[in-house]
Protein backbone atom coordinates (compact mmCIF):
# COMPACT_ATOMS: atom_id res chain seq x y z
CA UNK A 1 0.00 0.00 0.00
CA UNK A 2 1.44 3.36 -1.01
CA UNK A 3 1.76 6.32 1.35
CA UNK A 4 -0.99 8.16 -0.50
CA UNK A 5 -3.43 5.31 0.01
CA UNK A 6 -2.46 5.00 3.67
CA UNK A 7 -3.18 8.69 4.21
CA UNK A 8 -6.45 8.55 2.31
CA UNK A 9 -7.74 5.59 4.29
CA UNK A 10 -6.66 7.21 7.52
CA UNK A 11 -8.50 10.49 6.84
CA UNK A 12 -11.68 8.76 5.67
CA UNK A 13 -11.78 5.58 7.74
CA UNK A 14 -15.47 4.89 7.18
CA UNK A 15 -15.44 6.01 3.51
CA UNK A 16 -17.92 8.66 4.69
CA UNK A 17 -16.95 11.13 1.95
CA UNK A 18 -17.48 8.53 -0.76
CA UNK A 19 -20.89 7.30 0.37
CA UNK A 20 -23.84 8.69 -1.66
CA UNK A 21 -26.08 11.17 0.18
CA UNK A 22 -29.23 9.51 1.55
CA UNK A 23 -30.58 12.38 3.66
CA UNK A 24 -33.18 14.92 2.67
CA UNK A 25 -32.45 17.48 -0.02
CA UNK A 26 -33.87 20.96 -0.29
CA UNK A 27 -33.60 23.93 -2.61
CA UNK A 28 -30.88 26.38 -1.83
CA UNK A 29 -30.32 29.73 -3.56
CA UNK A 30 -26.59 30.39 -3.67
CA UNK A 31 -27.06 33.75 -5.41
CA UNK A 32 -29.56 34.92 -2.79
CA UNK A 33 -27.17 34.01 0.02
CA UNK A 34 -24.27 35.71 -1.80
CA UNK A 35 -26.28 38.88 -2.39
CA UNK A 36 -27.61 39.09 1.16
CA UNK A 37 -24.18 38.38 2.65
CA UNK A 38 -22.51 40.95 0.38
CA UNK A 39 -25.01 43.70 1.15
CA UNK A 40 -25.16 43.04 4.91
CA UNK A 41 -21.38 42.72 5.30
CA UNK A 42 -20.87 45.75 3.06
CA UNK A 43 -23.10 47.93 5.22
CA UNK A 44 -21.46 46.68 8.44
CA UNK A 45 -17.97 47.25 6.99
CA UNK A 46 -18.74 50.78 5.76
CA UNK A 47 -20.45 51.63 9.05
CA UNK A 48 -17.61 50.35 11.22
CA UNK A 49 -14.94 52.02 9.10
CA UNK A 50 -16.82 55.34 9.24
CA UNK A 51 -16.57 55.14 13.05
CA UNK A 52 -13.32 53.23 13.61
CA UNK A 53 -11.44 53.92 10.35
CA UNK A 54 -7.84 54.97 10.79
CA UNK A 55 -7.46 58.75 11.04
CA UNK A 56 -6.01 60.60 8.06
CA UNK A 57 -2.92 62.13 9.66
CA UNK A 58 -1.32 64.92 7.61
CA UNK A 59 1.62 63.72 5.54
CA UNK A 60 5.12 64.33 6.94
CA UNK A 61 7.27 65.84 4.19
CA UNK A 62 10.87 66.98 3.97
CA UNK A 63 9.40 70.49 3.98
CA UNK A 64 7.41 70.01 7.21
CA UNK A 65 10.46 68.33 8.80
CA UNK A 66 12.81 71.19 7.80
CA UNK A 67 10.38 73.75 9.20
CA UNK A 68 9.55 71.87 12.43
CA UNK A 69 13.05 70.59 13.28
CA UNK A 70 15.73 72.46 11.27
CA UNK A 71 18.52 71.44 13.69
CA UNK A 72 17.71 67.75 13.22
CA UNK A 73 17.51 68.26 9.45
CA UNK A 74 20.98 69.84 9.33
CA UNK A 75 22.44 67.12 11.57
CA UNK A 76 20.96 64.46 9.28
CA UNK A 77 22.22 66.19 6.12
CA UNK A 78 25.70 66.31 7.72
CA UNK A 79 25.49 62.59 8.49
CA UNK A 80 24.48 61.87 4.88
CA UNK A 81 27.48 63.89 3.66
CA UNK A 82 29.82 62.10 6.06
CA UNK A 83 28.40 58.64 5.29
CA UNK A 84 27.53 58.06 8.96
CA UNK A 85 23.72 57.93 8.61
CA UNK A 86 21.68 54.76 9.09
CA UNK A 87 21.17 54.46 5.31
CA UNK A 88 24.91 54.80 4.65
CA UNK A 89 25.52 51.85 6.99
CA UNK A 90 22.53 49.73 6.04
CA UNK A 91 24.13 47.30 3.60
CA UNK A 92 22.08 45.70 0.79
CA UNK A 93 20.04 46.74 -1.13
CA UNK A 94 21.54 50.24 -0.80
CA UNK A 95 25.28 49.71 -0.39
CA UNK A 96 27.97 47.18 0.49
CA UNK A 97 28.80 48.32 4.02
CA UNK A 98 30.72 45.48 5.69
CA UNK A 99 29.05 43.59 8.57
CA UNK A 100 25.86 45.62 8.20
CA UNK A 101 23.50 42.72 7.57
CA UNK A 102 21.65 40.59 10.10
CA UNK A 103 23.04 37.08 10.05
CA UNK A 104 22.43 33.79 11.84
CA UNK A 105 25.55 31.69 11.51
CA UNK A 106 26.17 31.38 7.76
CA UNK A 107 22.61 32.54 6.92
CA UNK A 108 22.65 36.10 5.48
CA UNK A 109 19.27 36.68 3.81
CA UNK A 110 19.74 40.44 3.43
CA UNK A 111 22.75 39.96 1.14
CA UNK A 112 20.80 37.67 -1.20
CA UNK A 113 19.24 40.65 -2.97
CA UNK A 114 22.54 42.31 -3.77
CA UNK A 115 22.80 46.09 -4.09
CA UNK A 116 19.61 46.64 -6.12
CA UNK A 117 19.00 50.30 -5.21
CA UNK A 118 22.48 51.79 -4.92
CA UNK A 119 22.45 54.94 -2.78
CA UNK A 120 25.51 57.09 -2.23
CA UNK A 121 24.10 59.20 0.58
CA UNK A 122 26.37 62.22 0.06
CA UNK A 123 25.80 62.48 -3.70
CA UNK A 124 22.22 61.22 -3.96
CA UNK A 125 20.72 62.97 -0.96
CA UNK A 126 22.71 66.22 -0.69
CA UNK A 127 25.02 67.05 -3.63
CA UNK A 128 22.68 66.10 -6.51
CA UNK A 129 19.68 68.01 -5.12
CA UNK A 130 21.89 71.09 -4.65
CA UNK A 131 23.11 70.94 -8.25
CA UNK A 132 19.50 71.23 -9.43
CA UNK A 133 19.25 74.72 -7.93
CA UNK A 134 19.13 77.67 -10.31
CA UNK A 135 22.33 78.95 -8.72
CA UNK A 136 24.04 76.05 -6.92
CA UNK A 137 26.27 77.21 -4.03
CA UNK A 138 29.87 77.70 -5.30
CA UNK A 139 31.05 75.71 -2.25
CA UNK A 140 29.88 72.58 -4.10
CA UNK A 141 33.15 72.72 -6.03
CA UNK A 142 35.15 72.58 -2.78
CA UNK A 143 33.32 69.40 -1.80
CA UNK A 144 33.62 67.75 -5.21
CA UNK A 145 37.36 68.39 -5.46
CA UNK A 146 38.19 67.46 -1.85
CA UNK A 147 39.72 64.09 -0.92
CA UNK A 148 37.67 61.51 0.97
CA UNK A 149 39.84 62.05 4.07
CA UNK A 150 39.28 65.81 3.94
CA UNK A 151 35.50 65.30 3.58
CA UNK A 152 35.43 62.99 6.60
CA UNK A 153 37.42 65.51 8.67
CA UNK A 154 35.00 68.31 7.77
CA UNK A 155 31.80 66.33 8.40
CA UNK A 156 33.08 64.79 11.64
CA UNK A 157 34.11 68.19 12.95
CA UNK A 158 30.81 69.79 11.98
CA UNK A 159 28.81 66.88 13.34
CA UNK A 160 30.60 67.13 16.69
CA UNK A 161 30.20 70.90 16.76
CA UNK A 162 26.45 70.57 16.11
CA UNK A 163 26.13 68.13 19.01
CA UNK A 164 27.86 70.57 21.35
CA UNK A 165 26.03 73.71 20.16
CA UNK A 166 23.15 75.13 22.23
CA UNK A 167 19.90 73.45 21.06
CA UNK A 168 22.08 71.78 18.38
CA UNK A 169 21.29 74.92 16.39
CA UNK A 170 23.65 75.45 13.43
CA UNK A 171 23.56 79.18 14.28
CA UNK A 172 25.23 78.44 17.65
CA UNK A 173 28.06 76.30 16.29
CA UNK A 174 31.54 77.27 17.48
CA UNK A 175 33.98 78.50 14.86
CA UNK A 176 36.06 75.75 13.26
CA UNK A 177 37.26 74.28 9.98
CA UNK A 178 34.15 72.68 8.54
CA UNK A 179 34.98 73.41 4.88
CA UNK A 180 31.90 73.76 2.66
CA UNK A 181 29.74 71.55 4.91
CA UNK A 182 27.80 74.32 6.78
CA UNK A 183 26.96 76.13 3.52
CA UNK A 184 25.87 72.92 1.78
CA UNK A 185 23.67 71.71 4.63
CA UNK A 186 22.18 75.18 5.07
CA UNK A 187 21.40 75.40 1.33
CA UNK A 188 19.72 72.01 1.50
CA UNK A 189 17.73 73.17 4.53
CA UNK A 190 16.52 76.20 2.56
CA UNK A 191 15.62 74.02 -0.44
CA UNK A 192 13.63 71.74 1.85
CA UNK A 193 11.89 74.64 3.62
CA UNK A 194 10.93 76.12 0.24
CA UNK A 195 9.24 72.82 -0.58
CA UNK A 196 11.47 72.02 -3.57
CA UNK A 197 13.47 69.13 -2.08
CA UNK A 198 10.50 66.76 -1.84
CA UNK A 199 10.03 66.89 -5.61
CA UNK A 200 13.72 66.93 -6.48
CA UNK A 201 14.48 63.77 -4.47
CA UNK A 202 11.95 61.61 -6.32
CA UNK A 203 13.21 59.67 -9.32
CA UNK A 204 14.43 61.99 -12.05
CA UNK A 205 14.02 62.15 -15.82
CA UNK A 206 10.57 60.63 -15.79
CA UNK A 207 7.33 62.57 -15.95
CA UNK A 208 5.47 60.25 -13.58
CA UNK A 209 7.60 59.36 -10.57
CA UNK A 210 6.76 56.56 -8.21
CA UNK A 211 10.23 56.03 -6.74
CA UNK A 212 10.27 57.64 -3.31
CA UNK A 213 13.30 55.67 -2.12
CA UNK A 214 15.62 58.64 -1.60
CA UNK A 215 13.12 60.89 0.17
CA UNK A 216 12.01 58.03 2.40
CA UNK A 217 15.56 57.12 3.40
CA UNK A 218 16.53 60.72 4.10
CA UNK A 219 13.42 61.26 6.25
CA UNK A 220 14.05 57.99 8.07
CA UNK A 221 17.65 58.90 8.88
CA UNK A 222 16.55 61.92 10.93
CA UNK A 223 15.39 61.77 14.55
CA UNK A 224 12.21 63.78 13.81
CA UNK A 225 10.25 61.08 12.00
CA UNK A 226 11.22 58.36 14.47
CA UNK A 227 10.21 60.59 17.39
CA UNK A 228 6.79 61.12 15.84
CA UNK A 229 6.41 57.35 15.54
CA UNK A 230 7.52 56.81 19.16
CA UNK A 231 5.03 59.43 20.40
CA UNK A 232 2.26 57.49 18.62
CA UNK A 233 3.43 54.08 19.93
CA UNK A 234 4.24 52.91 16.41
CA UNK A 235 7.81 51.62 16.75
CA UNK A 236 8.68 47.94 16.80
CA UNK A 237 9.58 47.78 20.50
CA UNK A 238 6.25 49.40 21.48
CA UNK A 239 4.12 46.66 19.88
CA UNK A 240 3.85 49.27 17.11
CA UNK A 241 3.21 46.63 14.46
CA UNK A 242 -0.26 46.18 16.01
CA UNK A 243 -1.06 49.84 16.59
CA UNK A 244 -2.80 52.59 14.71
CA UNK A 245 -2.50 56.25 15.70
CA UNK A 246 -4.50 57.28 18.79
CA UNK A 247 -7.04 54.69 19.95
CA UNK A 248 -8.07 53.54 16.49
CA UNK A 249 -7.90 49.74 16.44
CA UNK A 250 -4.89 48.50 14.48
CA UNK A 251 -3.84 45.22 12.89
CA UNK A 252 -4.18 43.12 16.05
CA UNK A 253 -3.74 39.87 14.09
CA UNK A 254 -0.01 40.71 14.02
CA UNK A 255 0.16 40.16 17.79
CA UNK A 256 2.39 37.10 17.60
CA UNK A 257 4.85 38.71 15.16
CA UNK A 258 4.93 41.79 17.40
CA UNK A 259 5.19 39.74 20.61
CA UNK A 260 8.67 38.29 19.88
CA UNK A 261 10.19 41.76 19.56
CA UNK A 262 9.18 42.54 23.18
CA UNK A 263 10.76 39.51 24.86
CA UNK A 264 14.30 38.24 25.30
CA UNK A 265 16.41 37.00 23.64
CA UNK A 266 14.86 38.72 20.62
CA UNK A 267 14.41 42.18 22.20
CA UNK A 268 18.12 42.82 22.56
CA UNK A 269 19.43 40.67 19.69
CA UNK A 270 21.18 42.59 16.92
CA UNK A 271 19.65 40.19 14.37
CA UNK A 272 16.13 40.34 15.87
CA UNK A 273 14.39 40.75 12.49
CA UNK A 274 15.99 37.62 11.11
CA UNK A 275 15.33 35.63 14.30
CA UNK A 276 11.67 36.66 14.45
CA UNK A 277 11.05 35.91 10.79
CA UNK A 278 12.62 32.46 11.14
CA UNK A 279 10.65 31.84 14.35
CA UNK A 280 7.39 32.71 12.59
CA UNK A 281 8.40 30.50 9.66
CA UNK A 282 8.94 27.55 12.00
CA UNK A 283 5.60 28.21 13.77
CA UNK A 284 3.78 28.50 10.42
CA UNK A 285 5.21 25.17 9.28
CA UNK A 286 4.13 23.60 12.58
CA UNK A 287 0.61 24.95 12.10
CA UNK A 288 0.49 23.62 8.52
CA UNK A 289 1.63 20.18 9.69
CA UNK A 290 -0.67 19.94 12.76
CA UNK A 291 -2.41 16.74 11.52
CA UNK A 292 0.93 14.94 11.44
CA UNK A 293 2.31 16.02 14.82
CA UNK A 294 1.43 13.64 17.68
CA UNK A 295 0.30 15.50 20.78
CA UNK A 296 -0.48 18.72 18.93
CA UNK A 297 -3.10 16.95 16.82
CA UNK A 298 -4.67 15.40 19.91
CA UNK A 299 -5.58 18.72 21.53
CA UNK A 300 -9.17 18.65 20.13
CA UNK A 301 -9.60 15.27 21.87
CA UNK A 302 -8.55 16.80 25.20
CA UNK A 303 -10.37 20.13 24.75
CA UNK A 304 -13.37 19.14 22.62
CA UNK A 305 -14.64 22.57 21.54
CA UNK A 306 -16.02 20.98 18.37
CA UNK A 307 -18.35 18.85 20.52
CA UNK A 308 -19.77 22.09 21.89
CA UNK A 309 -20.31 23.53 18.40
CA UNK A 310 -21.96 20.38 17.01
CA UNK A 311 -23.54 19.44 20.36
CA UNK A 312 -26.87 18.51 18.70
CA UNK A 313 -25.10 15.92 16.60
CA UNK A 314 -23.08 14.49 19.48
CA UNK A 315 -26.13 14.41 21.81
CA UNK A 316 -28.19 12.35 19.39
CA UNK A 317 -25.47 10.00 18.17
Amino acid at each position, binding site marked *: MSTTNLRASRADKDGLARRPWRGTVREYDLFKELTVALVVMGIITLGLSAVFGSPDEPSVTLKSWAIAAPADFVATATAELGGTSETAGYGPPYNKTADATQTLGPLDLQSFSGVQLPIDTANDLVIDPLTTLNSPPPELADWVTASDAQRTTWTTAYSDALTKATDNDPANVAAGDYGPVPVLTDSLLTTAKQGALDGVLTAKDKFYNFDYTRGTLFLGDGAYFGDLATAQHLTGDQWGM*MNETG*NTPGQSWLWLFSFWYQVEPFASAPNADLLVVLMMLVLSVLLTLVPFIPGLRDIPRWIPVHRLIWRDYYRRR
Partner: protein
Amino acid sequence: MHDFVSILASLDSPGIYLGWGAFQIQLGNLIVILVMILLFVLALFLPFPSGRKRK
Protein backbone atom coordinates in the same frame (compact mmCIF):
# COMPACT_ATOMS: atom_id res chain seq x y z
CA MET B 1 -23.58 58.51 16.92
CA HIS B 2 -22.00 61.93 16.67
CA ASP B 3 -21.33 61.89 20.42
CA PHE B 4 -19.67 58.53 20.05
CA VAL B 5 -17.49 59.80 17.23
CA SER B 6 -16.48 62.86 19.21
CA ILE B 7 -15.61 60.73 22.25
CA LEU B 8 -13.38 58.64 20.01
CA ALA B 9 -11.88 61.79 18.50
CA SER B 10 -11.14 63.20 21.94
CA LEU B 11 -9.50 59.93 22.91
CA ASP B 12 -7.60 60.08 19.65
CA SER B 13 -4.57 62.28 20.07
CA PRO B 14 -2.62 60.71 22.92
CA GLY B 15 -3.99 57.17 22.75
CA ILE B 16 -4.53 55.05 25.86
CA TYR B 17 -2.10 52.19 26.41
CA LEU B 18 -2.50 49.48 29.04
CA GLY B 19 0.38 47.28 30.01
CA TRP B 20 2.20 45.10 32.48
CA GLY B 21 5.93 44.69 32.00
CA ALA B 22 6.84 44.04 28.39
CA PHE B 23 3.16 43.64 27.52
CA GLN B 24 1.44 46.70 26.26
CA ILE B 25 -1.84 47.04 24.42
CA GLN B 26 -3.70 49.93 22.93
CA LEU B 27 -7.23 50.38 24.27
CA GLY B 28 -8.79 50.20 20.79
CA ASN B 29 -7.05 46.91 20.02
CA LEU B 30 -8.04 45.48 23.43
CA ILE B 31 -11.71 46.33 22.82
CA VAL B 32 -11.66 44.75 19.36
CA ILE B 33 -10.00 41.57 20.71
CA LEU B 34 -12.47 41.31 23.62
CA VAL B 35 -15.42 41.80 21.24
CA MET B 36 -14.05 39.05 18.99
CA ILE B 37 -13.74 36.64 21.92
CA LEU B 38 -17.23 37.60 23.14
CA LEU B 39 -18.70 36.94 19.68
CA PHE B 40 -16.97 33.55 19.56
CA VAL B 41 -18.34 32.54 22.97
CA LEU B 42 -21.84 33.76 22.04
CA ALA B 43 -21.67 31.79 18.78
CA LEU B 44 -20.75 28.71 20.82
CA PHE B 45 -23.54 28.90 23.36
CA LEU B 46 -26.46 30.68 21.69
CA PRO B 47 -28.72 28.21 19.86
CA PHE B 48 -28.82 28.62 16.06
CA PRO B 49 -32.14 30.39 15.38
CA SER B 50 -33.52 28.13 12.63
CA GLY B 51 -31.75 25.04 13.91
CA ARG B 52 -35.01 23.46 15.11
CA LYS B 53 -36.71 23.67 11.72
CA ARG B 54 -33.80 22.00 9.98
CA LYS B 55 -33.86 18.68 11.75
